[in-house]
Structure formats: C-alpha cells, structure tokens
C-alpha cells in the first residue's frame, strides 16, 4: 500500500479492497444463501438450527471482514465489534438460562390454576 507519509500529504487514507475480493465474497454469500435454504429441507433434527446458524455466522463474517473492511482496519475497530458481541452473548445466555430454569415453576403454576377447584 502507499507510503503513510505520502498519504498524509495527499490526504488519501484507507486501504482499497481489490475488486476480485469483492466479487468473490459476493458470490460466496449467494452460494451460502442457496445452501442454507436447501439445508432446511434435510431433516437433521436439532442440528438444523445449528447448521443454519453456522452458515449465517460464516456469511456474517464475510460481510464484516471484507465488505465492512475490518480485515484491513485498525484492530481497535475489531475489538469494539467483538466486544459488543460478547455482551450480546452474556445477555442472551443468562436470560435463556434463567427462563429455562424457572419454566418448571411456570408449568406447575399453570397446571394448578387450570384445575377446576383452584379459585381465589
């Protein structure tokens, strides 16, 4: 890439993504979309969800790294993005765990309330 000092002088900043990479990523995304639709037609039970998520994560990574330029950017920007995802995981993880843990109480309570004799 161009000399940093020259960039400062000319004011030009930033790395230019090669055309080949842009087209390649675009084609990969289209193919993966097709794959993910087709994969739902195959019955893998529980795994279907995880396969779909895996493909989504791969697509997302391609968009983030190449279209959004993170691969060529300062590491700080990547840290910001990944950091945010960590907190998303924290939020979802705890909410999911807690709601799963108290479901038995909910079901028990609903069952109690639906019995004909359970009144105020």
């Amino acid at each position, binding site marked *: 890439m161009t000399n940093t000092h020259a960039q400062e002088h000319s004011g030009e900043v930033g790395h230019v993504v090669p055309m080949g990479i842009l087209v390649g990523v675009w084609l990969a995304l289209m193919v993966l979309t097709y794959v993910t639709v087709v994969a739902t037609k195959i019955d893998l039970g529980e795994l279907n969800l995880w396969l779909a998520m895996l493909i989504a994560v791969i697509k997302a990574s391609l968009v983030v790294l190449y279209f959004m330029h993170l691969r060529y950017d300062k590491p700080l920007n990547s840290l910001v993005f990944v950091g945010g995802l960590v*907190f998303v995981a924290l*939020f979802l993880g705890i909410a999911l765990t*807690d709601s799963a*843990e108290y479901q038995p109480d909910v079901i028990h309570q609903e069952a109690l309330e639906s019995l004909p004799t359970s009144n105020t």
Partner: protein
Amino acid sequence: MTTISSSYDPVPELAHGNNYLTHTRGVLSWLFTLDHKRIGVMYLVGILGSFFLGGVFAVLVRTELLFQGEQVLTDDQYNQMFTLHGAVMTFLVIIPGIPAALGNFVLPIMLGAKDVAFPRLNLASFYLWTLGAIFFLAVLASGGLDTGWTFYTPYSIETNTAVIGATAGAFILGFSSILTGMNFIVSIHQLRPPGMTWFKMPLFLWALYATAIIQVLATPVLAITLLLLIAERTFQVGIFDPKLGGDPVLYQHFFWFYSHPAVYIMILPAMGVISELVSVFSRKHIFGYRFIAYSSIAIALFGFLVWGHHMFTSGQSNMMNMIFSALTFSVSIPSAIKVFNWLATMYKGSISLATPMCYALIFIFLFGIGGLTGLFLTTLATDIQLHDTYFVVAHFHYVMMGGTMIAFFGALHYWWPKMTGRMYSEMWGRLAAFLVFVGFNTTFFPQFVAGSQGMPRRYADYKEMYAGYHFVSSIGSYIMAVAFVIMACYLLHSLFRGRKAPANPWGANTLEWHCSSPPPHQNFDEQPAVGDCYDYSGLEYDTATDSYVPKSRTAVTT
C-alpha cells in the same frame, strides 16, 4: 501553532477579556453553538432545573408521609409523585448529570484539545436531552405516570397513565446518552495531546471513559425494552403480558440489563470527580493511580454481570439468584479499592477544607454507608426480608444522592470559577454543604431502620410503628431543601457580585487550570505541555491573587 508551552509558563491573558461566554452574543449563538463549553453550560441549566423539579416531587412525597393518613396527596397522586420523582431524577438528572453538564465542559480542556471529537453530535445530544425533557413535561401535563420509574409489566401495560409518553421520553434520553458516550470514547482515544499516554490522563477522564463504555453498551438494551413496552401497550403484542402468554420476568431481565449498569453510569463520573478533589485539596499526589484507573474499568465491566440482584424475589430461578448474589459481592471490591486509595491520598496530606473538599469528604462517608448497606441486599437470605422495603430506598439514596449528587455539587463548586469566572462565598458554601450533610442523614438514615422493621416502599401510608421514622425523615428533607435554596442563592449571587476568578484558584495541575477563567473560545492558543497532573510541586500560593501560580514566575531573586 508550532510551539508548546511549558506547564510552568504563566496563563496567557485573554485578548480584550474575550472568553467563550463573550465570544459571540445572542440566543441563537447559544442554540446553534458547537462549542462544548456552551453545550455543557446549557446542559447544566437544564439538569439543575430538572433537579429542582424532581426535588419538589420529593418534598411532596415526604410531606405526604410526614404523618399517618392523607395529608396533601390522594393515594393515586402519591403513586404519581414517587414515580415522577424517580423518573425525573434518574433519566433527566443523574444519568446525564456529571458527564453532560461538567464532563462536556472539562473533558476537551483536560485533553488540551479544542473540542470533543464530534461537536455536532454533541449538540445533537443536547437537543435530544431537551426533547426527552419536553416529553416528560408533557407526561406531567397529561395524566402523569404511576408505574414506578421501573415500568414493570403487567401494570405498566394496563394502567391508564401516560406510559407511552414517558417511555418515549426515556428512549430519546437514552440516545442522548449513547451519543455522548460515543463522543467521549473517541475523544479520549484520538485527541490526547503528545505526551499524554493513557496512564498520564487525569483520573476524571478514566472515569468518563469507563462511563462511556457502559453508556454505549447498556443503553441500547433499554431502548429496545422501551420500544417493546410501547408495542405492548399499542398493539398488545403479548411478549411481556402474562394474559397473552408473555413473560413479565423477561421484562425485568431486559430492564435491569440496562438499569443496573446505569447506576455505574451514575457513580463512576462521581468517583472520578472525587479522585481529583481529594488530590488537589490534600496537596498530594493521588495514591494508587493505576489501581483507581483499573478499578474504573473493572466496575464498568463487572457492572454488567450483576443485574439479577434486582430480581431475587421476582421469580428468577434459584440458580441465577445464587450466581448473581455471588457476582454482586465481587463488584464491591473495585469500589472499595477506590475508597482506600482516596483515604491514603489524604493521609499526611495538607488538607484544605474548601467547599469542594467538604463535598468530597461527605461523599466518602455517605458512599461508604451506601455501599456497605448494599451487601445486606445482595445477601439472598436478608434480601428476601429487605426487598421492596425502605432499606432499599435508603441504600440507593445513599449511593445515588449521597454519592453522585454530592460529587456533582462538589464538582460544580470546583469548576464553578473556571466555568463562570466568578468565585462564590466560601462561608455560605461550607454552610450549605453542612446543611446538606445533616439534612441528608436525617432524611435517609431512619429509613434504614424503618425498612429493616418492614416498612414497605412506595406506600402512601403506614402503620403507627413507623410514624417516628417518617416524621424525622420528612424533617430532614426540609433541611435539605433549605440547604439547596441557600446554595442556589449564593451561586446566583456570585454570577453578579462574585470576585473575579483567577486561572487557578485551587492550585490544581490538570490542563483546564492552565487557561484563563473563563476559558477562551478555542481553549488554548498553543498546545499545552503535559506533565504529571497530580504533581503540585511546581505551583505556589500567591496572596495577591488568592490563587496558585507557577513557581518560576514568582521566584525570589536573591
């Protein structure tokens, strides 16, 4: 702009006394300003006005509770009053508080910069704050709000009051907070001067940085929570409404995921202020700089792990109850580290009891009590007894008011000369501080006792056994009201009749004291030099100006 001044050069005189206040004139020049100092001042006016409004609600609440039975409010009106007191104080005063009103003014100057990274975004933040405030005023005029500031479902879905208006207002205020956080993070990363590494930054900036991280990560979750609540009320979506198969505990998870880190948004800047005050007014280098800096970040991050402690009795599972309880114990550690460092700073220091220092000392005392009482609440067994009692009310008032608001007023008195170019009366300042201290403890200490004896919160009336506590508490609130009126009087008086402030009345060494009081429009003509901002050895007291000046200028020529 090719020379850098030494930190021991005298502060340059302003050309024709031209400072940021006189730089341009007219209302429009303020409304469309991009100057962070003017934006800070406008925030300050708005926030102090909101504090007054929230205070009026508080006095009404306490007056209703002065005696048993109905005094000045019906039960429904009482519900509205404590809700509005909480909502106004939380969303309009304390969360924006120190970062918006004082951080905006001070941060760029402390960085030796001309402005924040995104001045237009800064103005947008202010407009959003104002819009949010207007929404709250509209709520006041149209049905009020009686859900408690926490908007818990299902009541918030069913009640007839202006929930949508209030949640929309809070949503808008949230974005004001997010934009300010973004601005501060980028400013601190990008606009530090040569020589100011991360560990040479003033601790107030570390505090604002940690606060900004929370603002940016937590507030969006509040945004979606409020949007979903609005959708619930408008379209009966059913996500939080048990009658439609929804989950009200999920609402609480959503709400507290933001609202717990929010209390760290409130306290971290306050702690940053105290770090500055304690060092300056002990004439001693802050003790344990790195510990304080790291603990700010630790509090910001740990604060995201503990929100469930607001939900111990709400139906949260036993497993998560235990996990949150354990994690909450750990979050007290970084705060305690700060308190120890401040005390160590004061030890063998040369303490000056100027008004800002009075507030700093009050902070340490009140925050200590507030923090320690949090431990009773995080212990599961005792929380079952104490949840939703006055113990909780006292706890959070000790940390939020005894902590953040005391630090806010300390910071206000500290930077008042810089912002306004005027000095206030020290005598009245200390008197007001003393009255605030007495009034505050009179108001809230009895509430710990009442709460531990079972007095529930958010109740318009009470049994005979609590009457004594409530009476004392209400008297305390009147003492506080008097103290704040006194404060308003002497501060306003100083604007017209106060002694002109020198550049450095307190003898501090952060960069904002290296420019005139008030600062010029562009903050600095030359890039200021960066030394150790907690090293006071290069300053000495000058009787003629009742301020501190660089030693070299008044060197004795023998």
